């Protein structure tokens, strides 16, 4: 078992151990491995006070894959290329690139001859086709390499027979096998000869880490050329015959439903409109163009039933949260304490690509296209909704335009299937931005209370009570946790509480420590937003750590360094302090902040500089929020083993931008049962004018044989460091996030009609 917060080598030494895989019967060479090859075998849970220190979410998701025995296969084709259908969703995190790199490493094939596609929903994979919890690389790192290594082994054996040279005297490079005499055979030729007419298990050695030539070296994205030329296809770019644009007229309050429609026939006769139909979530309009859908949606006169948050506002939800808060301790503390209570408002989790899906539902079959992170659950839900047997429903996973947790939910795919069934035609259904913002998924509002007790320069205890609007985990992750919760040392608690315990580890030596979650109110459409609990939990903790350091007369960096347990944790902290020149003199109104976060078997630290001077805060920004400017971020990360440092750096960069937004500008305002925000000019995600001019990301040297998680990792430390810097620059610890939530910086758009009119003055704004 590794030291808490240390991550380390959970799987034990791989070195030159042999791994089991398969050769499959096929016309060309197809090799395979089981997903979830025992990479968490050493992580048997035992009774212990801190669950995440023993078995974190990463382990749980990996352990959960063990019994499912779904094979993932590398195919080598007669044209000398290799292909692999990844049972995960690529939504920008770069996993098609890192996966191609793993295959390239073991198969000695250039990356441009490897095609990684996204697998359709494969029910036999059960828990193993869910993209979440920053788990993809951790769970697939070894199985993909095993399959590719077996392919290499078979190709060399075939070449040996072909050339009459022992396999040990052959080299495979750039897609050609060469013997010592210089004779070569193309991979494509060997792909046919190495094919097997029956499936059988084989064992193989993986490439030794010292010999890596691809893994661990920076590589640009394999889909970059398609992205910059406009050729990359997202769901709404697909040409499915007769799948016409479709939008839904939605209720003025969260999850309202249709009472009656006054002018359905009138709207059905509008230009371009082909169909208008009432569905569970509103009134769908199908038309020749999306612009005509917008017009149809705006023209509909609908009376609505109240939704699930009728009459609720920020203030009423805050009262619900206060009522649901657990006590910080049963007895009053006997020693001095530092305490804080922090409020985190609702935040939108829309990606830039709105919620969307194509559905073609016929009497006896259905086909769905959408960027889905939980396609197996989506397929089951869709089949049930449209009343077809599971095996008559095909679900294609398309490339996604961002996710951040959003695409764990498949609301648009369900709606598209429902509309297509009702009208008997294919539909290309897309949510308007206003729909995504007002009826979409949100990161739940929460409070977090922290109490630290101390005596002299010793920290005696750490208590944190996190109270949140319920997080909906009903997309498959909840099922994974529920199925395995009985095996965990957590007692009889629900999966949200289990998830919380799994995702929060105590990286500091803070004496007797406890962190508990309580949830309330299931009336909101919630989900993760690039991390579930960690950004809020970490921000609350790190702010109180700063307070205690000040109480003890200690420097924030020195204090953290003293109490962090693991060497790799201390190393990332020391690195940002060194590179960011921690403690350098800064003008009044500006300051540095520093914070630490560990999760997914990875450790991270952020050093932030912020400018809170009035001339900066009040700089004019048209239709946007300026506010305090983060001028510099130094971020250090140790993910154990970095498969693609360039992709990892990109993930850290994105998380930093999220952390800045969560601390300073991004939130939803709830009033009268709906969110006031309706577009990107209301919801203030980080923009260029909020971007730090100086960003340095440091990838630490590898400390493990296994890659940890990265997709969501950098949000928490970034948000916390921005909050700490803000507190130090202004002299007041912030307690409500984002800090500008109290100021409404826009004029709310109407809720009826639910979407704004399309502007007509585009030519006037040419620039």
């Amino acid at each position, binding site marked *: 078992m590794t030291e808490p917060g240390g991550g380390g080598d959970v799987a034990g030494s791989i070195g030159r151990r042999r791994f089991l895989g398969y050769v499959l019967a096929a016309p060309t060479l197809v090799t395979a491995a089981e997903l979830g090859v025992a990479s968490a075998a050493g992580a048997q849970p035992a009774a212990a006070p801190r669950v995440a220190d023993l078995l974190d979410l990463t382990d749980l998701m990996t352990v959960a894959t063990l019994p499912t025995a779904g094979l993932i296969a590398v195919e080598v084709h007669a044209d000398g290329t290799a292909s692999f259908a990844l049972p995960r969703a690529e*939504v*920008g*995190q*770069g996993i098609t690139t890192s996966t191609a790199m793993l295959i390239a490493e073991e198969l000695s094939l250039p990356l441009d001859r490897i095609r990684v596609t996204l697998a359709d929903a494969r029910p036999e994979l059960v828990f193993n086709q869910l993209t979440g919890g920053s788990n993809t690389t951790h769970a697939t790192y070894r199985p993909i390499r095993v399959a590719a290594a077996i392919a290499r082994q078979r190709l060399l054996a075939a070449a040996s027979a072909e050339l009459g040279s022992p396999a040990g005297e052959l080299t495979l490079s750039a897609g050609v096998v060469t013997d010592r005499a210089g004779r070569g055979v193309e991979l494509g030729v060997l792909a046919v000869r190495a094919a097997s007419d029956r499936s059988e298990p084989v064992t193989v050695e993986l490439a030794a880490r010292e010999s890596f030539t691809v893994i661990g070296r920076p590589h640009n*994205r394999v*889909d*970059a*050329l*398609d*992205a*910059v*030329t*406009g*050729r990359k296809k997202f769901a*709404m770019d697909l040409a499915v015959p007769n799948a016409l*644009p479709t939008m839904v007229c939605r209720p003025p309050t969260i999850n309202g439903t249709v009472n009656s429609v006054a002018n359905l026939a009138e709207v059905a006769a509008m230009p*371009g409109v082909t169909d208008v139909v009432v569905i569970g979530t509103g009134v769908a309009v199908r038309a*020749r*163009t*999306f*612009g*005509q859908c*917008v017009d149809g949606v705006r023209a509909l006169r609908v009376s609505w039933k109240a939704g699930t948050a009728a009459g609720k506002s920020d203030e009423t939800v805050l009262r619900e949260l206060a009522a649901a808060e657990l006590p910080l301790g049963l007895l009053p503390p006997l020693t001095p304490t530092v305490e804080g209570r922090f409020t985190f408002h609702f935040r939108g989790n*829309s*990606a*830039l*690509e709105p919620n969307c899906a194509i559905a073609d539902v016929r009497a006896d079959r259905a086909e769905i296209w959408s960027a889905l992170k939980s396609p197996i659950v989506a397929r089951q839900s869709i089949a049930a909704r449209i009343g077809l047997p599971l095996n008559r429903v095909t679900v294609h996973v398309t*490339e996604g*335009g*961002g*996710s951040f947790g959003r695409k764990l939910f498949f609301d648009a795919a369900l709606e598209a299937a429902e509309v297509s069934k009702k009208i008997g035609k294919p539909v290309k259904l*897309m949510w*308007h*931005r206003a729909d995504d913002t007002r009826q979409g998924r949100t990161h739940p509002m929460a409070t977090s209370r922290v109490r630290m007790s101390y005596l002299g320069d010793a920290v005696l205890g750490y208590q944190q009570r996190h109270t949140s609007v319920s997080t909906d985990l009903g997309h498959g992750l909840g099922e994974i946790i529920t199925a395995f919760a009985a095996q965990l040392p957590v007692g009889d608690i629900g999966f949200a509480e289990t998830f919380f315990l799994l995702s929060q580890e105590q990286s500091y030596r803070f004496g007797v420590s406890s962190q508990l979650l309580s949830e309330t109110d299931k009336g909101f459409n919630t989900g993760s937003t690039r991390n579930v609990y960690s950004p809020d939990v970490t921000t609350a903790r790190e702010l109180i750590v700063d307070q205690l350091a000040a109480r003890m007369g200690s420097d924030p960096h020195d204090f953290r360094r003293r109490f962090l347990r693991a060497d790799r944790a201390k190393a990332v902290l020391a690195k940002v302090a060194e590179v960011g020149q921690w403690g350098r003199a800064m003008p009044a109104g500006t300051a540095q902040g520093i914070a630490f976060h560990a999760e997914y078997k990875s450790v991270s630290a952020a050093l932030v500089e912020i400018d809170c001077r009035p001339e900066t805060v009040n700089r004019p920004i048209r*239709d*946007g929020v300026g506010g305090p400017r983060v001028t510099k971020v130094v971020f250090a990360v140790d993910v154990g083993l970095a498969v693609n440092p*360039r992709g990892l750096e*990109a993930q850290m*960069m*994105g998380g930093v*931008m*999220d952390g800045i937004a969560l601390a300073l500008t991004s939130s939803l305002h709830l009033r009268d049962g709906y969110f006031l925000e309706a*577009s*990107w*000019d209301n919801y203030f*995600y*980080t*923009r*260029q*004018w909020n*971007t730090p001019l100086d960003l340095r990301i440091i990838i630490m040297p590898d400390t493990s044989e296994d890659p940890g998680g990265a997709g969501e990792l950098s949000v928490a430390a970034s948000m916390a460091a921005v909050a700490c810097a803000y507190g130090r620059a202004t002299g007041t610890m912030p307690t409500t996030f984002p800090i500008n939530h109290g100021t409404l910086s826009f004029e709310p758009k109407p809720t009826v009609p639910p*979407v704004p009119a*399309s*502007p*007509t003055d*585009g*030519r006037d*704004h*040419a*620039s």
Partner: protein
Amino acid sequence: MPEHTFRVNGEQVTVTVEDDVRLLWVLRDILGITGPKYGCGINVCRACTSHLNGRAVSPCSIPVGDLEPTDEVTTIEGLAATVDEDLHPMQRAWLDHDVAQCGYCQPGQIMAAVALVRRVTEEGRSITDADLDGLRNICRCGTYPRIRDAIRDGAARM
């Protein structure tokens, strides 16, 4: 139904559709040109940014009836051809800096960047931080720092 004739990526096109349908939907839903993306529909997110006679515009906010036969619309698909290359220098800079993550906003980002560099060049100066701060295109993946680096680099190559 009215006919509209204008130029897209170097070719003259004629579409038969109501005057008030916005250019974005004419491009995407009728002509099948899907590089410009929908992100808000109200000229805020700039994911659909394309060029109209060389200037950056949001096609989501231009009724097709406003276009004249001589108007030249350039989408990301036609950008490289404006310099008679396989890739525009800005696209090359984007590749070198590995800017894209999910890629959804990137066609709009690149079109906005090219228009910015053209404007700044016409003003006889080079790109400043204030110019880059003024770019309104949203990237929800948070690629902003790499966008800034790529624009400076691409500007030097244009």
